[in-house]
């Protein structure tokens, strides 16, 4: 008796599923038919959207940027000049140091902060770059990247600390960071060109904007993750906010903050390459130029150069983080 009821039940269910599919299909067919009729009768109100807000908004943005550029030209020029001088100096220095010293330095650093294999591997990778005549481009890429990372850290870590200590600020900055991280990477090039024109400075601005979110996020996370019992103990001994931050929370958040910096470095490298589109020099520019001149060989070699550089930087900084975490042995 009960079995028949179950059987009936399942039959009913099956029927209702089939019915739902049939209904959906019917609606789809009707909508398609209507669309065909609309195009046949040329009802333009339904095919073209009746309003377009784009021109006024575009104009407003144009005016605003014009206003900024005209009135604050001195500031942008000054910033641009400073940045150019700085990039130039770092690049000149990196190129000025004879290549054997640079390779020995990376061998030693890789060995010390990560492991023997990382050190040797990094040295070989740099030798490869040099032997394919990518040395100078690589040094330019590193120079731009270093400055962008430095700016990201100097701005990102304080913002992360602020976000960790204020829930309101966190609520404001979170959607902004989410938005920044979902944007396609070359959208970041726009503000750079607007204020600084083509060149390395625009590239740095784009790189900073692109690379800063993980630095802010992971600083915030690291501080928030600190064991509440330890923070309570710090408070109970009469630490003020500054002492709690500098003596307890930040030191305990260091591993997470370092992970954030590692991500920032990797994202900066990715962006510096794309920033070749706004005139940044370096390996990205080599790829871009070679592609433009249909020299596939050059493009592939410069592209592989970027990959090699990325691996070296990632291995060394990752190794540093892992070793550090092991020695401080945070529970």
């Amino acid at each position, binding site marked *: 008796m009960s079995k028949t009821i179950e059987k009936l039940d399942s039959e009913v269910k099956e029927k209702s599923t089939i019915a739902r599919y049939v209904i959906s299909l019917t609606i789809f067919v009707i909508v398609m038919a209507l669309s065909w009729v609309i195009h046949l009768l040329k009802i333009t109100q339904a095919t073209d959207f009746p309003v377009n807000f784009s021109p006024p908004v575009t104009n407003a943005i144009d005016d605003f940027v014009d206003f900024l550029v005209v009135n604050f030209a001195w500031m942008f020029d000054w910033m641009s000049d400073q940045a150019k001088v700085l990039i130039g100096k770092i690049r000149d220095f990196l190129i000025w140091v004879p290549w054997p010293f640079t390779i020995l330095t990376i061998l030693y650093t890789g060995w010390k902060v990560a492991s023997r294999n990382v050190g040797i591997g990094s040295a070989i990778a740099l030798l490869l770059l040099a032997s394919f005549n990518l040395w100078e481009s690589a040094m330019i890429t590193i120079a731009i990247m270093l400055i962008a990372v430095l700016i990201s850290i100097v701005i990102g870590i304080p913002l992360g600390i602020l976000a960790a200590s204020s829930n309101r600020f966190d609520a404001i900055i979170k959607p902004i960071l989410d938005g920044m991280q979902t944007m396609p990477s070359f959208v970041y090039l726009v503000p750079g060109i607007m204020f600084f024109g083509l060149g390395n400075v625009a590239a740095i601005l784009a790189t900073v904007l692109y690379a800063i979110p993980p630095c802010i996020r992971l600083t915030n996370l690291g501080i928030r993750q600190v064991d509440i*019992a330890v923070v309570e103990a710090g408070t109970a*001994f*009469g630490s*003020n906010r500054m002492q709690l931050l500098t*003596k307890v929370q930040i030191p305990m958040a260091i591993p997470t903050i370092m992970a954030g910096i590692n991500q920032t470095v990797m994202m900066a490298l990715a962006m510096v390459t794309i920033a070749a589109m706004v005139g940044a020099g370096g390996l990205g520019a080599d790829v871009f130029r070679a592609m433009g001149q249909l020299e596939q060989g050059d493009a592939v070699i410069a592209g592989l150069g970027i990959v090699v550089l990325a691996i070296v930087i990632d291995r060394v900084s990752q190794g540093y983080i892992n070793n550090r975490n092991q020695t*401080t*042995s*945070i529970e």
Partner: protein
Amino acid sequence: MSNIEIVNLWKVFGNDPEIVFEPDNINKTRSEIQDEFNQVVALRNVNLSINPGETFVVMGLSGSGKSTLVRALIRLIDPTSGSILINDKDILQYNSQELENFRRHSVAMVFQHFGLFPHRTVLENAGYGLEIQNIDIDTRNAKAQEVLDLVGLSGWESSYPSELSGGMQQRVGIARALAVEPDILLMDEPFSGLDPLIRRQMRIELKKLQQTIQKTIVFITHDLDEAITVGDRIAIMRDGEVTQIGTPEEIVTSPANSFVEEFTFDIPKTRVTSVCNIMVKPLTEEFDKRYVVTPESSVEDMIPLVLETGDPIPVVDSKDKLVGVVPQQKILELVAQSARQEYSE
């Protein structure tokens, strides 16, 4: 040394604590308030007076409000109403500067989960309280070393907390608290996270330590055995209220209600009953000097003596003067009672 006076202390967790104080609601039980208003009464009209230099134990099951109470004493939790007078100053009226000073100098806390700083060595952990007072590094390290020696951690100064066993970690916690030379030591279930053997050892060490340091100690525990070992007086809490306050002997021998009685069921009466409460007047001035006890010792201490002599046990004061005797019959009665307790389970 400080005395602590807790007066009409309330703590209500929730978004609208004031509703509990309305005349219609003030007498409602904890669960009624929770059901009707979604407010949790953690402390209900607590009144306690803690004497200078005593070890005062607050005992209760989880959720009884004992941790809230000890956190209120250092204002890690701000009570809803009432006052806490320490040396006649209401600490609940302190502004943030006064509070910081109070936490730096007058009171220190030992935590259940130790709360040690994993990125600092044992020495740096012990010196933390002094470091935030901006005391120079030499003075700070000397003091930290001194308290580490006191808790028996000499030689571990440069280790990190994660390299230490649980018992040793809690010693660091105690050293860190003692380094700031507080008047009051708050201990929130300090030994609950340790193995039973280490736990017993730590209790005995705390008792010894207290004889040297003579602080006012507020000790939180859920273990009556522990309360009786370390406590001069015990307050038993239930549902945010204090049910009974008394010496271990008073709690065990005359529990205020069935709740306390159930708690004390496992504790043998011979362990807490003092000799002075059961001794009788001596018939003669003469007594055997080999088998004497003091009035403060427990009945348990007399049992080995009973095995060696057939005479009543003489009780002498600190000047070796006979103040009473305990007939063997009385001791046996109490032992029999304790044994019955054990078997009736």
